[in-house]
Structures are given as structure tokens and as C-alpha cells.
């Protein structure tokens, strides 16, 4: 409050110092926001948790790749060939969870969800192979979770296909009395940007994206609605600060907090624990995080001007944030979504920030490649902030 008084005293050279006064007022208001946040201890503790331990838990804990799919086998043959085939279903993709005597028992385990796959090897499997009769094995897959089920089936098909190809080549080689040439298209893969397909990188980064989104939307929105609810916004409006300064100071304060929290997450978890490389420029990344926070805060402030109380702003946050989090491409493959969702998501700043973040951190690309995403974020943020300003002015003046 005393600093604000100092600002008002600068009457003498108000022309020359307008900008200085303006900046000072903004600074004072920003400081006020930070002080208010500092007093909310539970919230602050939660913020720290969200950008440290919580990042670690989801980075280390979540693997969407097929992993330890529980496999049951009903082996009707018990021969060398059937054992050879079963042996090829290996970790990390499959976890052999034992044999079942009866097919029904296996299906029951699938029902209960304690197993995901049931491989059924028919009697006379070995005999058929030796006798050169074609034979098929059956696989039952729990597809209540469709993508995982499909993925498991694809791996199983690959394993059986290779088993079959090895048999064929062995057999044909044997027939011609030596190694025989066979035409074959072999697959060689080079995975870029994350050679080992280390999922901790992806998950920890996407967790930070989630957290930035939530906090950047909610912190300024809740702060503004609180002032509306308590009536302190009227007090601010009769003071020399402009509505623009009121809104901007909230965005500035929360952006600072989010940048600090992001730095905490990078320094405490991403680099030391998971070894995420920062291939591109770190300052550029933080600059982009600031831009993204600003954009998302613009959305939040707009919601706050529509809402009359915290409960309403909470509901509007849920309305806006959950599609952003689930449909912007960190939870699901963006290209596979229906066209209308992709169009709708052009409005989600997260959709652009996902490309920017992975681009800078993992691909090491810079401004020359990412400029269009940056422009989109800036435009979205500017528009939302402008709309919020317009509504805010109209409500209070």
C-alpha cells in the first residue's frame, strides 16, 4: 500500500514519468498477487507437489506401451514345438502367468480381468508341424481397453509370424540340403528424438504440460473472481490503477509462479531423474512457456469475467480445460481424431504448445520451424485477453 502511495506522489513530472508510474503500479499490483498467493499455504504446498513429486510419479509410473500383458496358456500339446512357441512370448511385452488346464478357467480369468490374453495351442501341434500340415493356434484377447488389446494382438501376430517363417526357412533349407535364399522384406527402424523410446521422457513432459495448463488457467481466474466476490475489485477500480493493469498484473504474477514451478520441475525431476535432454534452447523454452501461460491465463480471465463466483469459474474451467487436456494430443494421437475435433482443437493453445515443447526439448528445433505455432498461441492469447478486458470494462465502468 505504501508503494502505491509513492506512485501517486509522482505528480511533478507526470508527463515524463507516466511510463514509470504505470510500470510501478503494475509492479505493485503484481507484488500484491504474489503476496496473496504466498499466504495460501495449502495451495502453495500443493503447487510444489504438483511440479515435483507428482511429475516423478507419472513419469516413472505410466507406460502406455504394451507392458507386462498377462498371458495365460492352454497347452493342449506339451511338446517341444509348443514350448518353443510359448517361450517366444517374452517380457517386457508379455508376462507368462502360467498354464491353465481347462480353457474355461482361462476365460474366467479374462472375465475377472486378472489376465489379458489366452493362448490356445491345439493337441497334435508338434505332429502337424512335423507332418507338414498347416496348423493354427488361437489367441483370445481382452479388448475392453481397445488400444492395448490391439497392440497385444499385433505383437502376438508378429511372434507367431516369425515362428512360422523360421520353421518354413528351416524346412526349405533342409530340403535343398543347405541354406537357401528366400525373398524377405526385413524391417529396420530408426527412432528419432528418443532412440530408446524411453516413455518417462514423454510422460514427465506431458505431465508438466498438464500442470502448467491447469495452474495457468485457474490461478488468475480464481484470483479475479475472488476480488469480484469480495468486492475488492471495486476498491481497485477507484484507485488509480486501470482495469488493464488489474488484469495484466494477475497474469504476470501467475506467469512468474508458473515459470518458477516449471524450472523446479526441470531441475529437480526431468534432468536429474529421467535424463530428459534439452536439445534446443532453454531460454526459448521458458519464453514459450511464458507465452503459453499468458495465452491460457487469457482464457481463464475470460471465464472469470463471465463467472460470478468461484463455483461458476470452477465449472467453466472444467468445461474448458478437460477437452484441452484430453484432446490436444498428449493423451491420444492427434491425427487419428475425427476432423471436427481437430478443427475445434485449433482453439486450444495446448495443441500448439505440445508441438513447441516436444520440438524444443526433444527435437532441438528452433524459431524457424516453430514460428507458426508461436504465432497461433500469441494470436489466441491476445484475442482472449482482449475479450476478457472488454467484458471486464463493461462490467465495472
Amino acid at each position, binding site marked *: 500500500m505504501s508503494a502505491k502511495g509513492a506512485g501517486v506522489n509522482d505528480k511533478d513530472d507526470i508527463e515524463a514519468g507516466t511510463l514509470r508510474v504505470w510500470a510501478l503500479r503494475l509492479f505493485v499490483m503484481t507484488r500484491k498477487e504474489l503476496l496473496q498467493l504466498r499466504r495460501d499455504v*495449502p*495451495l502453495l504446498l*500443493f503447487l510444489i507437489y504438483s511440479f515435483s513429486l507428482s511429475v516423478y*510419479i507419472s513419469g516413472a*509410473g505410466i*507406460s502406455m506401451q504394451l507392458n507386462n500383458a*498377462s498371458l495365460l496358456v492352454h497347452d493342449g500339446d506339451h511338446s517341444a514345438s509348443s514350448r518353443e*512357441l510359448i517361450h517366444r512370448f517374452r517380457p517386457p511385452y508379455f508376462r507368462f502367468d502360467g498354464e491353465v488346464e481347462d480353457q474355461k478357467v482361462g*476365460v474366467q480369468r479374462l472375465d475377472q480381468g486378472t489376465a489379458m490374453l489366452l493362448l490356445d495351442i491345439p493337441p497334435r501341434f508338434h505332429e502337424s508341424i512335423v507332418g507338414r500340415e498347416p496348423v493354427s*493356434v*488361437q489367441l*483370445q*484377447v481382452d479388448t*475392453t481397453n*481397445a*488400444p*492395448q*488389446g490391439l497392440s497385444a*494382438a499385433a*505383437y502376438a*501376430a508378429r511372434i507367431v*509370424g516369425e515362428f*512360422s517363417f523360421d520353421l518354413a526357412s528351416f524346412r*526349405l533349407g533342409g530340403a535343398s540340403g543347405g541354406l537357401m*535364399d*528366400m*525373398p*524377405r*522384406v*526385413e*524391417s*529396420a*527402424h*530408426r*527412432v*528419432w*528424438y528418443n532412440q530408446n*523410446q524411453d516413455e518417462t521422457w*514423454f510422460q514427465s513432459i506431458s505431465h508438466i504440460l*498438464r*500442470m502448467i495448463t491447469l495452474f495457468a488457467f485457474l490461478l488468475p481466474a*480464481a484470483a479475479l473472481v*475472488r476480488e469480484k466476490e469480495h468486492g475488492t475489485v471495486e476498491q481497485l477500480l477507484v484507485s488509480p490503477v486501470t482495469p488493464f493493469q488489474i488484469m495484466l498484473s494477475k497474469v504476470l504474477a501467475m506467469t512468474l509462479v508458473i515459470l518458477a514451478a516449471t524450472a523446479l520441475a526441470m531441475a529437480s525431476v526431468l534432468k536429474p531423474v529421467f535424463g530428459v535432454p534439452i536439445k534446443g534452447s532453454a531460454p526459448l523454452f521458458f519464453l514459450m512457456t511464458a507465452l503459453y501461460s499468458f495465452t491460457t491465463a487469457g482464457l481463464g480471465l475470460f471465464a472469470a469475467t463471465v463467472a*460470478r463466483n*468461484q*463455483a461458476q469459474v*470452477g*465449472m467453466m474451467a*472444467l*468445461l474448458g480445460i478437460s477437452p484441452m487436456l*484430453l*484432446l490436444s494430443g498428449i*493423451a491420444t*494421437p492427434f*491425427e*487419428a*481424431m475425427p476432423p471436427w*475435433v481437430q478443427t475445434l482443437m485449433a482453439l486450444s493453445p495446448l495443441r500448439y504448445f505440445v508441438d513447441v515443447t516436444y*520440438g524444443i526439448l526433444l527435437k532441438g528445433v528452433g524459431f524457424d*520451424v516453430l514460428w507458426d505455432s508461436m504465432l497461433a498461441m500469441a494470436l489466441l492469447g491476445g484475442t482472449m485477453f482482449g475479450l476478457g478486458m472488454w467484458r471486464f470494462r463493461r462490467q465495472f465502468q
Partner: protein
Amino acid sequence: MNRRRIAAVARKEWKETVRDRLFLLMAFLLPALWMVVFGYGLVLDVEHVPFAVLDRDQSSLSRDYLYRFIESRYFDYRGSVSDEREIDRLLGDTAIRMAIVVPERFEEQLLAGRSVTVQTLLDGTFPLHADTTKGYVIAVNNSFTQELLTDFLARTRGLGPDEARRLAEPVSLETRYLYNQEVRSTWSMVPALIMFALMVASPLLTALGVVREKETGSIYNIYSSTASKAEFLVGKLAPYFAISMINVAVLWMIAVWLFRVPFKGNIAVFIAASMLFVLCSTGIGLVISLLVRTQMAALIITIIIAMVPTILFSGLLVPVSSLSPGAQVQAHLFPMMYYTDVVRGSFLKGLGLKSMWMDLLALTGFAVVLRLVVYGLFTKRPKA
């Protein structure tokens, strides 16, 4: 416990909720809206992977080979390049997720019965997608090899096509997809979305209901009134419980009638589990509301606690069985996982009480423990 006093608290809460039109609208609209948007929009299948090709052979066989990718629904052809450096740029800009490089003398080598290596370059930023894409490529390569081999055997050994095929593929795999025969991700998503909608909206309603009174000071009316702790809590919860149960019914109807997801299980079990789950989710909201002082903190903490474990650890996107042990522990500490099991089991698997009693027991346990915690935390004589 006095029924009239409970009714009075509930009526007051109900009036406050109804008076806030926007809030009331959202409370009913939001879950239904999510269900529709995410039911249609949240597609988990890796499809339409954008890719480019670099064909160094330019033969009829290489074109035949690449055509299998171009016409597949899993891939979206984005053009052909003449230089590996161009691939670099396209991958960096996320214009493509994959590139296929066909080597020189592709046709010549294969027709001569030798093996050829085709290289695929994948964008690894999303490991799951990269991995799934890899699987698709291998499947295409394997089936192409199978055909080549059959052809080759027929040509070099003078066998009939059937005999050659039998020789080329001695063992085959038949796959049966259980519970979701067409492997539609909509079917796996929609039931779980009922859980998502209930978990994300109900705690917020409840938490704000209490903290609002704390922040505005109207809670002192309760402190000084004759209503006991238990009466206050029950009355406070009643309207939100009612809203959530109406939502359960609406969501169930959307799932069955709009998305045509079969409901094969026992409706009574489903309703019982839903009631228990709503008690759990509102209980979480109450616990948070008693730990914080400001609505701002209540809002942010509830949204994050409700959303993050629900997206990550409930089985919505990732099956709990493929989480790491540490994350599995966390999954078991929240009620979401158990309810997801019940919902998916009831809809897709047609399970009844016999196979799901454990989940129901766990939900009951959560509901009771949360109530006890709330009862312990809530005091009519706060220190400050």
C-alpha cells in the same frame, strides 16, 4: 440425528444451488457434454499416421510395396521425397511421423530370392505411437514377405499356389477379440467416461459448497445452530448426491442409446456401485474443503486431485496392470480404479456381483473411511 434438521440444511443448500442458474446448468450439462465430446472425439487408436516415402528403386515392385501403406487406413500418405535431408525437416516440423526408405535394387534382390532391408524412420517423441506404428510396418512387411515367398516357391519349385502357401506359412494365428469384437475404442472409452464425469464434477460441487460458507463466514450460523456435525454433513451432501445420481442415469442413457454400447451386466449392481462411488467422490470434495481455507485453494486442489489421477491412474487410458508398481499403489489408493472395473465389467463383460464383489467392497470401504475422516476433521469449534 434429527431428520428435520437434516432436511433444513439440505433445503438451504438446494436453494443456494438452484439460485445459481449458471452453476446449476453446468452441473447437469457438463457431464453429458463431456460424454458426447469425448465419446466421439477421444480416439485412442493410432490411425492416419502421416508419412512420406523415399523410393530409391522406382520399380514396379517397390511401387506395389509402397502402395500397401498408401491405401491403408492406418497411414496417411503425405508425398514422396527425393532426399533424406528433406525427411529430416518434415519430421522436425511434425508434418510427418514416419518415413519409409526403399533401398536401391529392391526389386532385383527380392526376385532373386534375397532379403532386403527397408528402413523406416519414426518420430519417437510419442513412444506409444512410434511403437504402434512400428507394429503396423512389421505387419505389412510380414504379409508382403509371405506373398513374395509363396510366389517364389511356386516359381522356383513348380508348386501349385495352395501348396506353396502351405509351405510358406506352416503356423498361423487366429485372434479372437473378447468383449469388444470390433475393437472399437468408443466402446472401451464410453463406460469409463461415466466414471470420469462423476469423478471430476461431484467433488468440486461439494468442496465449494463448504468452503464458500467458510470464506463468507456463513458457516458460523451452522456452528451456533442446533444442527449437529453429522446432520450438517448429511444435509450438505444431499443435494449434490441427488444431482450426481441424476447424472448417472443420464450418462447411462447416453452410453446405451447414443453410443449403442451394450449393457450386459446387472443394473442393480451398477446402481449400487454408482451410489457408493458418488459417496466417495463427494467425500473427497468434503475432505479437501475441510483442509483449506480459501475457495481458490479448494477449486484448484479439487480440480487437480480429481482430474490428474482420474486421467492417469483409473484405467481410463492406461490399464492399471501395466502401471509400474509405485503407480499401481497410487491407483489402488483412489476409488476410481474400482469403479472403472465395475462400469466396464457391467457394460462390456456382463459381469455380476459374483465377480465384482471385491470392487464393491473396496468402494464401500472408501466411502466409509472418507466419511470418518470428514467427521474427524470437521469441528464446530474451530481454533482460529
